[in-house]
């Protein structure tokens, strides 16, 4: 199937890397095992992404069957009516707020519930419930809870409130990751610090916190980039309002797609892709480096 992928790799016996030479690898771990997964990835993930780069420059819509190229018209339209930069600003702000709150809450809970007591174990279980719940359901619960307060109708502060709700839903996950990170600190290192007379406060910040770095990288990255792709919670609490002040990119895409303005939706989808990709490369680099260290 994928024979063409198996072009012979010159093997130098002098510095044969790893436990087995590549010639044997080719037989014991054949490339065609990659084929089904990569076929699906290419057709249903890569291809639509490439389509984004094409259809963002057309007048594709639900009102006519012909699709014609229009150059940068969609971009200039979105820039000139201010939608593009407003949505970008809101999305970035939302993502940063979610990442900060989710990690602060998660870290606080992990430190609070670190000891393995019965109460703590039950408490941890409770904080996992929102993680399991549907984000849409979480949104409706908070809409009902907060509607009488007017917090969801403020053009300045509603974005903050919605990001707090998003962080509330996912803080249990950050807590679990930080708890697992705290457990990886070897007991003898803490013992040594204690013998050397380090205070508990100092031990915590100089020994345990640095060892949490991989956990921090992971949860900050996933919270930041994940919430840029958010939709459910914002849709269920405000629907992008009031006055479109919480309209993150995916809300815009959903709304314009529903109106049949497919090219505009595609353009914003491309903008979201570029935004995340731009921020993701350093993040993937960090994740992979961490993997090599551990």
């Amino acid at each position, binding site marked *: 199937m994928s024979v063409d992928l198996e072009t012979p790799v010159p093997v130098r016996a002098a510095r044969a890397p790893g436990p087995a030479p590549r010639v044997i690898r080719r037989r014991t771990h054949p490339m065609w095992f990659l084929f089904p997964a990569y076929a699906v990835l290419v057709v249903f993930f890569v291809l639509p992404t490439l389509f984004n780069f094409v259809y963002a420059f057309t007048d594709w819509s639900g009102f006519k069957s012909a699709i014609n190229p229009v150059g940068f018209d969609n971009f200039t339209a979105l820039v000139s009516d201010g939608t593009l930069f407003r949505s970008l600003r809101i999305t970035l702000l939302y993502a940063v707020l979610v990442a900060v709150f989710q990690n602060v809450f998660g870290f606080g809970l992990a430190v609070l519930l670190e000891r393995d007591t019965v109460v703590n174990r039950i408490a941890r279980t409770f904080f996992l419930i929102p993680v399991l719940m549907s984000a*849409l359901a979480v949104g409706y619960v908070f809409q009902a809870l907060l509607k009488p307060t007017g917090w969801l109708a403020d053009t300045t502060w509603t974005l903050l409130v919605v990001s707090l709700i998003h962080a509330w839903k996912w803080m249990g996950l950050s807590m679990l990751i930080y708890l697992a990170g705290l457990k990886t600190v070897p007991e003898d290192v803490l013992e040594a610090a204690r013998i050397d007379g380090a205070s508990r406060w100092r031990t915590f910040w100089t020994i345990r916190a640095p060892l949490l770095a991989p956990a921090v990288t992971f949860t900050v990255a996933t919270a930041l980039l994940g919430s840029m792709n958010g939709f459910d919670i914002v849709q269920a609490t405000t629907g992008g309002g009031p006055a479109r002040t919480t309209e993150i990119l995916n809300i815009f895409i959903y709304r314009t797609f529903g109106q049949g303005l497919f090219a505009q939706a595609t353009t914003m989808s491309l903008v979201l892709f570029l935004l995340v990709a731009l921020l993701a490369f350093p993040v993937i680099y960090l994740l992979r480096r961490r993997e090599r260290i551990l």
Partner: protein
Amino acid sequence: MSDLPLWRRLQPFVAVLLVAGLIGAPLWLVVVTAGKSQGEAIDPDFSLPSHWQLLGNLRQVWTDADVPAAFLGSMLIVVPTVVLVLVLGSMAAWVLARRTSRPIAVLYAVGISGIILPPAVVTVVLLLRQLGLAGTAIGMICVYLGIYLSTVIFFVTGFVRTIPESLEEAAQIDGAGPVLVFRRIVLPLLRPVLATATILICLYVWNDVFYAFFVVGGRLDTLPLNLFRVASAGLYLNNWNLIFAYVILMSLPLVAVFAVAQRKVISGITGGAVK
């Protein structure tokens, strides 16, 4: 810091208070509101219903909103997605973990990029239309596979690297081919990480409404899509008792899974993040 005697005594109370305030209050709101009559539930609050009609509300949602059809739709999509994503993902991950070369590193980077990069939700609809899969369960499954294969590849590749290769070599010396080695030796060893991935993927797909809206919205009902439609339609606007009854119905399967496999869920969720 956490060993001071006073704090040791106080900590359980702080923990209980936080649970009650942060988790208990919203959940209480859901349950009491789901038990109220329509009139009482117009402005949801923490008061008890004057007359509990939780079962009646559940029954009304069950029939009015056509929950059984949506439940079947969800199952029809979640089960094949999870099975396929695990099989295809671990096949690829095994080879990616065991072979080392420049092209493999590139393929791995491409394979895991979907963890972070957002899928092109609008153009995927066009693609499915061209393939004749628009609005079908198969189309939806393929889209989920494209989105979540990267998660599985990331988790499983990391796990395979921790398994000593000698186990495979023993079987290879006995003459077993790659398919046999993968099926009989590797797959059983992957059980912990596959449990992790199952939980994560179930969670994502079961609760997804965004991708489902674009791909199968209006054609095939899933539970979240149905809830979304029901809650935004004029029919249930501000009928919080019915919306929350739906939330309870929809969450029950996940709560059941969680109750049965709680330890697995917890180790699962953390497993990939901090090795």
